Structures are given as C-alpha cells and as structure tokens.
C-alpha cells in the first residue's frame, strides 16, 4: 500500500543523521531531499513540495519550532518533529506549533518508519477536510491526540500502550466500519509488535479492557474483523 514511496524533506543539522536517515527512507522506497538549516529548507521547498517534512527541533539559526510554524502558516504539509529532548512539554509545544507528530531521539528506525506511515495515512483523507482539532470524542470519552491521552467521561486519564493508542486511533478514524485484522495490524505495527494475526486479537482485548466502562464499543465481526460502534466527533 505504502510502498509507492513519497517525497520526504529531511531537515537536520547533523550530517551523519541526514545521510543515515536518507538511506533508511530510500531503502523503504521514499524519495528524500535533505536540508541542514532554514535557508536550505526554504530553497528545497521552492523546487518542490514534499509529501512530508521531518524537522529537527535543534537547528542552528532559526530553530525547528519556528520553522514548523512557518511551514504550517503556508500549507497543511504533514510534519514530524525530531528532537533530542524527550520531555513532554516539547512534544506538546511542537504539536501546537502545528506538527503532526513528534519523535524523540534516539528513535528506532522502525519506529520512524511507522510514524511516517501513520502520518501519511492520516494526512491523505484529511486533504479534503481541513486540518481539524486535536481532540476526538466518542461516548463521552476523549482522546487528546496531542498528548496521546485518553480520558473517560469522568475525566480520569486511562493509560494506553503505544499499540493500544494506535489501534484506538485507527478505529476512531474509521468508525462504524468493519476493519480487517490485516488492516489493523498494518495500522498499528510498531517496532515491537509480532507479525501475527493473534497479536491484533490480543491488542483488541487489551484495548477493550481499558475501555471497559464504556460498554461494548469494539464489536467482533466474525470472520471479518472488528467494528467501532460509537459515533465519533472531532473537535
């Protein structure tokens, strides 16, 4: 599905990171342009509009956050921020600047690829409808995609694993439709998940347990997959 390859612009001041990430992305079939700083990035953007920008936060001169805002002011270009800071504040900050996702160094190559895939997948349907808010509501529950945080109707934060979060997000993006195990597996595949069919059943049962008080929101459709029952509202 995703093997067609995309145009990706990588902005990072570390030459080795640029070389290594480019190689990684090219091996995945993507086309990569690199830039070491803000002027180079602007130059690259003049030539062609990429499908996604990988943007390092720590850049000499104009920093990544300002660049992110600058990019976002002009377009709905998907952006993933890269940073050496792992702390939450920066992530939120990056997302409020308009980034679609955030990845802390040191990242696993496979996780980078998974995030790129997820952001591109999410970006495609939203080309028509304008970029919406960061909050998704269903059955009184709330998923804050900026914080990657789920709260129940009482406002209690329910912790989710990365796999559960990705799975829930997939359901929320396509509610009331039967999703096959293959599709769910592809959508939620991250660095550690084993490529077994059963793995998705385990993930679904774990997610159901986290959503226990919401009632039966994920229905098993025999022989077909799973279906997310409630209405979903993006704000």
């Amino acid at each position: 599905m995703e093997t067609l390859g995309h145009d990706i612009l990588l902005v990072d001041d570390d030459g080795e990171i640029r070389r290594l990430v480019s190689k990684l992305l090219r091996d995945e079939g993507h086309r990569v342009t690199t830039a070491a700083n803000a002027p180079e990035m602007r130059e690259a953007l003049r030539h062609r509009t990429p499908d996604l920008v990988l943007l390092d936060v720590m850049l000499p001169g104009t920093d990544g956050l300002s660049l992110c805002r600058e990019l976002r002011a002009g377009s709905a270009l998907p952006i993933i921020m890269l940073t050496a800071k792992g702390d939450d504040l920066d992530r939120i900050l990056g997302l409020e600047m308009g980034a679609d996702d955030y990845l802390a160094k040191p990242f696993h190559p496979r996780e980078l690829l998974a995030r790129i895939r997820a952001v591109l997948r999410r970006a495609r349907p939203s080309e028509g409808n304008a970029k919406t808010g960061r909050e998704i509501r269903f059955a009184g529950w709330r998923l804050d995609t900026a914080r990657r945080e789920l709260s129940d109707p009482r406002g209690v934060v329910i912790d989710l694993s990365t796999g559960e979060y990705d799975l829930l997000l997939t359901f929320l993006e396509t509610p009331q439709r039967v999703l096959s195990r293959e599709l769910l597996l592809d959508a939620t595949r991250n660095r550690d998940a084993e490529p077994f069919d059963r793995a998705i059943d385990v993930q679904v049962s774990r997610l159901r347990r986290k959503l226990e008080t919401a009632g039966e929101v994920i229905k098993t459709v025999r022989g077909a997959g799973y279906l997310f029952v409630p209405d979903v509202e993006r704000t």
Partner: protein
Amino acid sequence: MRAFASSLAARTMLVLLLGIGAVHLLSLWTYRHALDREAATADVTRLADRLLTIRRAVMRVAPSEREAVAHDLSGGPIDVHWSRSEHAVAGGPGSGELAGLAVRLGTLGDDLAPGDVVVGANRGHHDDPHLAVVSLALPDRTWINFSLVEQASRHEDGHGTLLSTSLMALGAMVLSILLVRWLTRPLLGFVDAARRIYRGGETVVVPEDGPTEIRTLAVAFNEMQRRIKRMIDDRTQALAAVSHDLRTPITRLRLRLGEVESAATRGAISGDLDEMERMIDQTLAYLAGDRDDEPVKPVDVAAILATLVDDQIDAGRDVILDGDHGAVVEGRRLGLKRAFANLLDNAVKYGGRAEIRVAAEAGGVTVTIADHGPGIPAADRARVLDPFVRLEPSRNRDTGGWGLGLAIARRIVESHGGTLDLADNTPTGLLVRVWLPVTRGEPRPS
C-alpha cells in the same frame, strides 16, 4: 548538663543567672557584714551606758538597799547583784569578744579606775545562759556584778534574704529570657533557611540584618548557598548536557545498525543501545526531579499497571496483575508510569517473577509489587532508595542502569504525597509497597 543547657538560650540564661546570683549574694554578704559590725559597736556602747547608769543608781542608795535596787534594775539580758567582792574573774573563754565592752566602760565611766572594771567570761557550765560577768567597783570597794544573759540574738532575717534572692533570680530569669529571645531570634531564621535550602532547587535568602556577628554570618551563609547552588547547577547541567548529547550518537548508531550484516551482532548492539538509552532516560528523569511540568489529573493507576504488565508479558516475563479496576488518584500519568515501570523492571530483573496487586481504599491506592528474588536485607533498605546506590553482588548481576530506578520511583511517589516502603516477601524476595493518596493532601490512614 548537656541536656539541661544544650540550647544557646539555656546557656545564656544560665550564665546570666549564675553571674547575677553571685554578684547579688556577694553584695548581700558584704552589706550584712558591715551592718553587723555597726550594730555590734552600737550594742556595746548601749550596754556600757546601761551598766554605768545602773552603777550610778546603785551607788546613790544606802548599802542596805543596794541589793534590792540592783535587783529592781535587773531585767532583760542583765541580771544585777550587789556584793562585797567582785564575782567576775578576768579572762575565761570568749573574753576576747568582751574586751570591747571593757574598753568602752573604761572610756565612758570617767570615775572608774582601771582596776574597777573586771570583765570575765562565764566560768559556769556551757549550758549556762549567762554569757559573762562584769563587775564594777563602787567607790566604797563594794561591787556591782552584772550577769549578762545571752541576748535573744537579733535574728538573721533568713527569710528576707531568701526572698530577695528568689525575686532577684526570677527577675533575672524573665529578663534573660526576653534578652535571649531577642538575641537568638535571627538564628531561627538560619535554621528555617537551612531546612528549606535546595528542596525545590532554589536558594533561601536569609535577611542580612541584626547584630554584627549575625549579619556577618548571614552574609557568609547566603554566599555559601549561592556557591553551592552554582556548583550543583553546573554539575547538573553538565550531566544533563552529556546525557542529552549522547542521544544524537545513539540515534546514529541505531541507524547504522542497518548496515551491520550479522543479525546476532545487530541484536547485541541494539540491546546495548537500549541499555544506554535507558540510563540516559533515568539520569535525565532523576535530574528533572520535581521540576516536572506534566499536569496533575485524575489518573487510573490500574490502567497504568495494566499497560506495564502487558509490556512485560510481551517481553516474555512472568508477571501477574491482580486487584481493583479504576484505582484513581490525582497525579501525573507519565511520572507514575515511570515510577511503576522502574519497580516492575527491578522485580523481574532480580526476582524473575513478579506479582502486582492494586487496591483502592478510602483516601488512597495501595500497590504492592512482590518478587521472588533474593530480597534486600533490612539494613540496606534505606540506602538502596538513595540515588546511585547498587547492592553488591546479589542484586547486581549483569544488570544495566545507574541504580537510579528506586530513587526515581520514590521521588515520584513522594512528590505525589505518597509513600514507598520495602519489606520482605514470603517466603523469599522483596515486597515493594506504594501508597498514593487520592488527592495530594490526603493524610495516610494509620
């Protein structure tokens, strides 16, 4: 003495009391002594006067009536008799004290010749109240004998002395308490400051006023604080910078792993990188400490534990979670997750197998994490909660980490107003008990 006068205030009071007391007693004694001397002189003069007056009175009457008159004039401490010969014998015990009387009689009685006065101490028994006998000759060589009875001694006013001393002491004490309070009040500021310094990573400025010594101390104290803060901050920053900057090379190494042919080598290097990354995370988490800007919200502790336990199960560990769903506390999700992740990692690392129980009670949530490893000896339990401490050798085999896991966990739990205790698991192993209040201020039920 140490316990009695251990405080500066008590010592100062003691010094003041002893000093004032000593001066008071000394001056009292000197005053009394002078007064006594004065009184003694006056007494002797008065006595001599009286003896001479009696002599003159007896002298004027006829010899036949002299004894009766003498008797009539007796009284008080003086017993008077008339006789043909003197009763007194010069000398005798205590005659020295009466020498003054003899001299006085000689001076006052103009008509007395030196041989006319005989002053003798009482020759009688010791229990005889008569002190002395004074014989004065009459012109016709008959004698008047005065027996001096011990006077009801002018009572030393013992109560008065005691009272005045007590009052003095009381006054000194009240005064010294006020004085010492005033003197030592600035020191309490230091105590307060010293207790609060660097709790939240900031200095506590002590006001630089008061007496010179205190002011100098305050200036030095504030300077010391600034130096300590600078030192700690420098080192913290250096450590944070190193930890932080290591992330880029680790990222490069991870990316380069793709170029490594051998899957076994790839796996090994990847494992090493994971470990390095964990250490950096832990160090940065520890350094970040309380300066945590994650917002506090109601959080389901059971859900956090479920995520962590699932991760452990996925990694092939034998971990069981049991207990209440919906154990909600007000807290920081990522912080609590890190704390419990550290505790779980420890349990499976050292204990192989771990059992986690979560119980929601009124006022709080209790989580116990039990393993079946070697446990931690009671003597080491307090130490092991300190940063950078690892026990040798049983709990330290081929394990990564900085020995920060427990320290971070405790710090996070305590920043939530909770407690973290270590105990023995039965039959073997460690039992970690974490209690978190539903709301931060909630007191722990006993």
